[in-house]
């Protein structure tokens, strides 16, 4: 809502008061306004890229799986990782038979003459450590997954909330937009007059402000104004039509009253031909 308001007020900043305009200057103003609104100067390509990220797939409330963590665990249990195997320097020569152990120890230099068991030992030892680390990583992943799951739930909830807010903002923005449009139209057609008589006369009703209107006429004028408030723009007529024609408000003393009516959403100025007089 605040953004809409700011946009509306900034729009009015560009109102042109003179006949000479500079298109480049106007475009600079528009771009400055867009930058200010965005907060950062993203290019259109960057925005497009951001927009194409397929978050909806995950954040769609209808497709959200509330038992994701459970399913993940089940999947993990269905195919558990193989057990790890501790592998140290002497693992290769270990045996519960003392004599055999002695023989192996005795002939180890001979074995080393034909191959290098240290390399095998080192590699298998490293593999064992890697397996242990993988198990730890799995535990951490489990936590991350749970966290991600909770975040997904939260973001989905926020997404729904944002969607609702967007609809509200859109509705409010359309009303602001309409008011802005009507205000612009009125600016162009209404001649403001400040009748000295009206200022001096202490009157209770604003209808009596109209100069030259006798108290006895005020009721009839007020009735006319109420009728006018109810009417909307002619079907088929556009702002362009309206601007190109004369207005009764420019001629009569109703201008002050019409200016007061500007807060009424259904009220728009009408061409002379269709205005009651």
């Amino acid at each position: 809502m605040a953004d809409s308001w700011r946009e509306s007020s900034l729009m009015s900043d560009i109102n042109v008061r003179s006949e000479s305009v500079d298109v480049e200057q106007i475009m600079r103003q528009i771009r400055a306004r867009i930058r200010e609104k965005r907060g950062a100067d993203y290019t259109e390509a960057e925005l497009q890229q951001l927009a194409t990220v397929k978050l909806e797939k995950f954040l769609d409330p209808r497709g959200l799986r509330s038992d994701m963590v459970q399913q993940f665990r089940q999947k993990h249990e269905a195919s558990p990782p193989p057990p790890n195997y501790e592998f140290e320097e002497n693992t290769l020569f270990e045996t519960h038979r003392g004599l055999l152990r002695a023989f192996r120890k005795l002939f180890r230099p001979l074995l080393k003459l034909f191959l290098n068991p240290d390399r095998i030992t080192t590699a298998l030892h490293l593999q064992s450590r890697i397996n242990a680390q993988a198990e730890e990583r799995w535990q951490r992943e489990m936590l991350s997954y749970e966290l991600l799951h909770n975040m997904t739930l939260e973001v989905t909830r926020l997404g729904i909330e944002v969607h609702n807010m967007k609809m509200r903002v859109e509705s409010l923005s359309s009303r602001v937009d309409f008011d802005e449009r009507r205000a612009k139209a009125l600016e162009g057609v209404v001649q403001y007059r400040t009748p000295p008589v009206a200022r001096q006369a202490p009157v209770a009703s604003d209808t009596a402000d109209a100069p030259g209107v006798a108290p006895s006429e005020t009721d009839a004028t007020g009735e006319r104004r109420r009728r006018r408030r109810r009417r909307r723009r002619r079907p088929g007529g556009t702002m362009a039509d309206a601007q190109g024609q004369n207005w009764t408000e420019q001629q009569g003393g109703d201008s002050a009253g019409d200016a007061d009516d500007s807060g009424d959403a259904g009220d728009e100025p009408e061409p002379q031909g269709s205005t009651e007089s």
Partner: protein
Amino acid sequence: MKLAIVVQRYAADIAGGAELHARYIAERLARHASVEVLTTCARDYITWKNELPPGEDTVNRIRVRRFPVSTPRNPNTFGALSRTVFEQPHSVADELRWLDSEGPTSPDLIQHIRHQADAFDFFLFFSYRYYHAWHGCRAVPSKAILVPTAERDPALGLSIVAPIFRMARALMYNSHEERAIIEHISQRQGPGVIVGVGSEIPEHPQPARFRRNHQVRRPFALYIGRIDENKGCPEMFAHFQRYAAERPHGLDLLLIGSSVLPIPKHPRIRHLGFLSDEDKFDGLAAADLLIMPSQYESLSMVALEAWALGKPVLANGRCDVLKGQCIRSNAGLYYESFEEFVNALFLLEASGPLGGILGRNGREFFRRHYSWSVIEQKYLDMFRRLSTEPAPAVEPLPGFFARRSRVLPPAAAVVAAAPSGAEPA
């Protein structure tokens, strides 16, 4: 004075940009000289199939001579050759093959031009990128005046087109931007003038009749032209749908022209189909503004028509020509993103602060630069100037081996390296 207008297609009902341009110029110059149009029998710019009878004809009191197209275009061959010359290192021979495949290949037309060279004072060739213009300019270089109608497309980067730009006696440009890129690519220094084209603007268009006939009750922005991807219509539709969602009381979008693209079903987008000129001008007069979403334009006649009727234009800012015209005329805004589109549209509405002023500027811009008296005078001045100046030398094609050497850079890269942006007035 006797003039020949050489153009790829010519008929009263052909609405293509360059073809319409050629017809308007032929009809206007016929008031000052004897004009004959030399063209092909094709109607379809994709296949160049012979559809009109060869021989003499008269179109709007202009004598037209048509020649058959010897080989219709094969889209597959043309596509493959286009990829070769636009995107890969290639040879002059590849480019010549590309030119033949693009068409409209009419050796009879070129033969006629060569034989009748003495019968005309000048030959005006329209659209640099087609067969008739390239071979025609080489057939009568001392009498060739080229109306390039060039856009910023990869064909400009082909090595075979630069000599044509250099050897033509004069170039009649459509815009400052077109002149800048052609002069950069070809290093041309000969005579040239920015002319463009006028239009037959009715004195009293009737917006009320348009609204009544087409049941239009709300203010609207108008698009006129072929509804095509190349014209930037998908982006316009996307932007407009977002605009409509943001501004429920904003403008509607009306489309005039034939469609080769599915049009989104949206309550505020209406397609009226192909309309008569009378209807089109009534529609322009009834519109709040004209939208020109095309990125590739050498001159937008419909934008000029909108300005002639005092309507502002919202143009695609990525098109240097349209952007330049908006700036020089002070009669239109331009966009490069959705935000710019929506802000500019808001400002240009008839009830907005700018529309009226920009429209008045547009009317003045059209009157000053594109009224027929101004355009005719520029052509006549050029003919007068050329009749006293010597013709430049003809540049020969490379030799047998040089022509086949694949050392030329991709044409798209050549164009991409050329300076871009709107030119100052």
